[in-house]
């Protein structure tokens, strides 16, 4: 009797320990990473990882596939770049401008998109994001094909010089951790539970009395705002904002990152983003177009491992023994 109790206790305790160790190790790796890797490369991964995590808030936890998230990512990059360069605001305020801009854009696109479900939702977001792309192509402040160039990084809170790449890296890392923290808080709140119930059974959520539309719109705006956070930071990292970030290919890329890492897992998109960005950097110097590989990985993911890397790990025997739970319909 005591033995079984002991075992049960261990079972209960070990997952938390294991997960804390994983989390700590991960954070330590990220803190030490600039010693081994090129900081801009790492910052690119972190920006895209946050982008993918924000996207996953919508796809993985609410069950809505947006094919238009590039609008929020690239849009925020433009807003931040414009605010910092033309208005001369400090970087933290510039990023805030990007976040608010992306949230407003999300409210407008979301308002139309949630009127249809499933496959139509995906097509509507794609079409509206394409409309925003054409707007960016023609608008004055985006400078069309040239984009907004040589955006100053400025001084964070007036005294941290972000033009130094180490400072910039730790700033980006801090934003990333805060962003992930917010996402974690959202999905583990009562609000997040309702989102999951919408994902699992929308009709039942409606019959339980939840105004599903409002919840969907709220999730959409939150996802857009967090995407804007990633986009704004990216504009500061690379010091430019261009049409590439608002194009539909970018919307496809973030879907791939999420799918590859694991839909509906908190940190899966981080791995997906890391892999995709590494692949892009690797192929950037060659003539070989990256879209061929991207497309093939897409097809392989959908056909062979829909849970993604992290999802498959969670679902493996080791992952289960470590107490990771991963529930998502396929």
């Amino acid at each position: 009797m005591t033995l079984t109790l002991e075992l049960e206790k261990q079972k209960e305790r070990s997952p938390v320990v294991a997960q804390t160790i994983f989390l700590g190790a991960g954070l330590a790796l990220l803190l030490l990473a600039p010693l081994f890797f090129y900081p801009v490369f790492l910052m690119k991964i972190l920006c895209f990882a946050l982008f993918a995590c924000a996207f996953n808030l919508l796809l993985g936890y609410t069950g809505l596939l947006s094919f238009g998230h590039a609008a929020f990512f690239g849009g925020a990059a433009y807003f931040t770049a414009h605010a910092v360069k033309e208005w001369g605001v400090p970087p933290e305020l510039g990023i805030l401008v990007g976040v608010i801009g992306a949230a407003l854009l999300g409210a407008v696109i979301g308002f139309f998109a949630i009127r249809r479900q499933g496959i139509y939702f995906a097509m509507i977001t794609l079409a509206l994001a394409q409309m925003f792309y054409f707007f960016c192509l023609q608008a004055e402040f985006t400078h069309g094909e040239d984009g907004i160039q040589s955006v100053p990084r400025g001084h964070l809170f007036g005294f941290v010089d972000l033009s130094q790449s180490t400072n910039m890296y730790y700033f980006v890392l801090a934003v990333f951790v805060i962003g992930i923290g917010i996402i974690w808080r959202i999905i583990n709140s009562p609000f997040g539970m309702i989102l999951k119930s919408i994902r699992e059974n929308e009709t039942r959520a409606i019959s339980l009395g939840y105004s599903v539309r409002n919840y969907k719109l709220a999730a959409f705006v939150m996802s857009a705002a967090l995407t804007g956070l990633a986009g704004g930071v990216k504009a500061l990292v690379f010091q430019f904002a261009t049409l590439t970030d608002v194009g539909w290919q970018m919307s496809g890329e973030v879907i791939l990152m999420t799918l590859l890492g694991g839909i509906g897992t908190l940190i899966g998109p981080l791995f997906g983003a890391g892999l995709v960005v590494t692949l892009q950097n690797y192929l950037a110097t060659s003539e070989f177009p990256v879209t061929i590989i991207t497309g093939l990985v897409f097809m392989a993911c959908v056909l062979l491992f829909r849970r993604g890397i992290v999802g498959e790990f969670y679902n493996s025997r080791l992952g289960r023994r470590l107490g990771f739970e991963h529930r998502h319909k396929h």
Partner: protein
Amino acid sequence: MTTIFGIPLQAFLGQLLIGLINGSFYALLSLGLAIIFGLLRVINFAHGAQYMLGAFAAWLLLSHFGIGYWPTLILAPLLVGLLGAAVERTMLRRLYTLDPLYGLLFTFGLALTVEGTFRYLYGASGQPYATPALLAGGTNLGFMFLPIYRGWVIAFSLAVCLGTWLIIEKTKLGSYLRAATENPVLVQSFGINVPFLLTLTYGLGAALAALAGVLAAPIYQVSPLMGSNIIIIVFAVVVVGGMGSIMGAIITGYMLGVAEGLTKVFYPEASNIVIFVIMAIVLLIRPAGLFGRDA
């Protein structure tokens, strides 16, 4: 000079013609999308790539084998249709039991791969394709000059659209397709080979896209990117029309093409977004689409 709403009649009719041409392609493509979606519940993102493949098939057949426009009009859709059927048979088939979003993602990956391959092989710039000799030149209609090839595209695509509609609505095969759309299990229990119908349907949809590609080859340049440029607009067309009705897809395609053409006359800056604006308005007033049934 005759004017209409202060616009020279010539310019007005010219844009109307361009609108009808674009509308022909929108109609052909959204028709194929609607047929595939009706039976397979898959939104075929590779539709644009298949359209591009049709155009490239025409160009390759002419430049490598000397096969002209007329045989190509049959050959290219046949080739792309077979390719589509093979994809359905080997890969797409595994996704039917899953959430329809996976079908969208799979075909998106397929489109990226095909487009990337062609860009790698032939570069991003376009290849010209000569108008067939029989349809070269133009004719003066008295009120405007009509290039014969453009007239041919409008007439032929209209015939193909109506023909497809007739096949689906009036023939035995069409009745099987419609029945399988409503209830595949029941249809299969009557001894009809539903998996084969699915393969046939996807092949047919791909062939229609390729046919549109061949028609487009002499008008636009044959380029690897021609498919992805048009597919997003066609998605908007499909949202406006709703995918419940074949005729709805055809009519919406032509309507939006004309709307786009006329916007070029009155307010050129908005011409590339007008279809998206119309989509947004339709979503506000009639979310299920003009011809849609609520899914």
